[in-house]
């Protein structure tokens, strides 16, 4: 199983590297968008999947990072790379603040507080023209320089996004298998018991939000650069719901779930284009069916299939009459 997993991972990575070479700019754009959204979903997966804290503000955090980079590069002439620590730091801080209510309330209350925060962040983006350009947005956000490669070339920038996503995947993997990951799981499964074992649940709760938010904020910097333009709309509530959908439909609390989920949410509408006007209808229906029959998401579905095949194999010899 272990080697199979490595081989599958290798093939997947090779595809990620080779496939875009054959695509036209739109395909490359879509894939760049996908790898970036994977990171945003991974961040939410840390907060929601691993630590069990519902957050419906992920798009807002993405926006904080995107606006930070956009403002610093276009208005103050900062280098893209220098804006990264600021974008990460600000979103981390905001994640801490949004996490505070989680120390008092859980479940649907937490969902609504975070949802409220997302709308507030959006309103600030839209209304504060002096800072964010308001509804008009910010134009001509530069692509980063990197070893003299022209990042305006979609393929080069895609590879940069891919490397970034791979690093973030490694970071998520590291966190999940570190003692922190275990503490997050304890927080999700039984915070009272965890506290009695010396787990500082307050700090871990805040960290779960802050790290998830920082993943989104850092990605925001690349997202702004990918689009070369940002306005408030991609950071509205409905996109936070999309990220939630990515994590749940892919498979929460698994490392590859968010990758699968982000792929589904971004690419499914593309596949359904043949359905023209009806594609959103079909899409919504598919999501409901998935939730009804496989709430653990695609990864859960896959595991169930593997288990079923395993059972059938194990049973097969006894079923065959001799």
């Amino acid at each position, binding site marked *: 199983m272990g080697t199979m997993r490595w081989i599958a991972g290798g093939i997947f990575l090779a595809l990620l590297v080779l496939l875009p070479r054959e695509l036209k700019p739109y395909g490359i754009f879509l894939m760049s968008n996908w790898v970036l959204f994977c990171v945003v979903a991974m961040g939410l997966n840390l907060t929601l999947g691993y630590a069990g804290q519902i957050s419906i503000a992920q798009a807002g955090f993405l926006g904080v990072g995107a606006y930070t980079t956009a403002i610093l590069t276009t208005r103050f002439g900062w280098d893209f790379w220098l804006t990264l620590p600021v974008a990460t730091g600000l979103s981390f801080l905001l994640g801490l603040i949004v996490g505070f209510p989680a120390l008092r309330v859980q479940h649907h209350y937490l969902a609504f507080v975070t949802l*409220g*925060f997302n*709308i507030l962040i959006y*309103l600030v983006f839209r209304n504060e023209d002096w800072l964010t350009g308001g509804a008009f947005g910010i134009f001509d956000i530069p692509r980063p320089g990197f070893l003299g490669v022209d990042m305006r070339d979609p393929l080069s920038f895609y590879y940069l996004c891919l490397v970034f996503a791979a690093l973030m995947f490694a970071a998520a993997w590291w966190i999940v298998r570190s003692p922190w990951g275990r503490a997050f799981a304890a927080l999700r499964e039984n915070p009272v018991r965890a506290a009695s074992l010396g787990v500082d649940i307050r700090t871990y709760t805040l960290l779960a939000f802050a790290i998830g938010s920082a993943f989104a904020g850092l990605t925001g910097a690349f997202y702004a650069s990918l689009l070369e333009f940002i306005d408030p709309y991609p950071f509205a509530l409905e996109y936070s719901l999309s990220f939630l959908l990515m994590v749940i439909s892919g498979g929460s609390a698994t490392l590859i779930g968010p990758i699968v989920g982000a792929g589904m949410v971004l690419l499914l509408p593309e596949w359904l284009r043949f359905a023209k006007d009806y594609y959103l209808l079909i899409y*919504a229906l598919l999501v*409901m069916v998935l939730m009804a029959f496989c709430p653990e998401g695609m990864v859960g579905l896959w595991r169930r299939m593997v288990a079923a095949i395993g059972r059938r194999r194990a049973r097969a010899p006894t079923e065959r009459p001799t």
Partner: protein
Amino acid sequence: MALRARRTLVMIEALQLLISGVSTGAIYALAAIGFVLLWQTTGTINFAQGEFVMLPSIIMLAFVLHGGLPLWVAFAVTLVVSGLLLGVAFKVLVVQPMIRHGVLPLVIATIALGIFMREGAKEFFSNEAQPFPMPVPYVVLELGGVTVTSHHLFCLAVAVVLVLALQWFLGGTRTGRSMQAVAQNAQAAEILGIDVKRMVMLTFLVNAALVTVAAILVTPVYLAKWDNGEAIGLTAFIAAIVGGFNQVRGAVLGGVLVGVLENFSAYYISTEYRTAFPLILLILVIMFRPYGLLGRPEERTV
């Protein structure tokens, strides 16, 4: 003297805002009550509640425009259709298969359901806003400088009657008390011999009726359109939580409070942030009185 005149003017303005706010808030309250009832009995957080108000308005209008029915007949027919679609079908096809998986999958499913209803209304009815007839003859009254319309008064009257009737039903009838019992503790209710399944179904039907009434009240002002649910749904959540998630009275207070707060903050503070103030109220309430202004603390489980 001038000061006094100014003061009167300020009073009139405030009164004007209050009356509009209360009448809009009363409509939010109806949607919020249904939302709370669903949460109580089944733990469903219905992210499609706003679309649940939009759809009956579209159906009603379709009966009026294409079926040639008078509005009140269309309303009666829509009440039945809503009961079947938003009550029975919603419970059987969406909530029932998913509730055992926990809250999150159902949240996602209702979000998807909301999209489904929006797109359906757009594709099969109209992608443009449509005017909607007034349920009562439209008269504008001027009372000491404050304008009130017959529709305002109608909204208020309907909401008050409906809420009182609901309170009486829940507190004063056997069926209503059974529903309350199921809402508080389904297992205990089952032991007491209450038909839990029937009560849950009844809750869904009550919700369907409430949103249909909300639809006939809000749409004449708001116009009938496929994406109307977004704003109404969000406000209903806020109202429900602000008032108290486990109380019908709370949802009423929440709805009215949010309606009034929106108007006052838009007039006196900022129109650009008009949607922010109810949210700030929401966050404050959750932080400092998580069970809502009128709600009771839920049992703590260790």
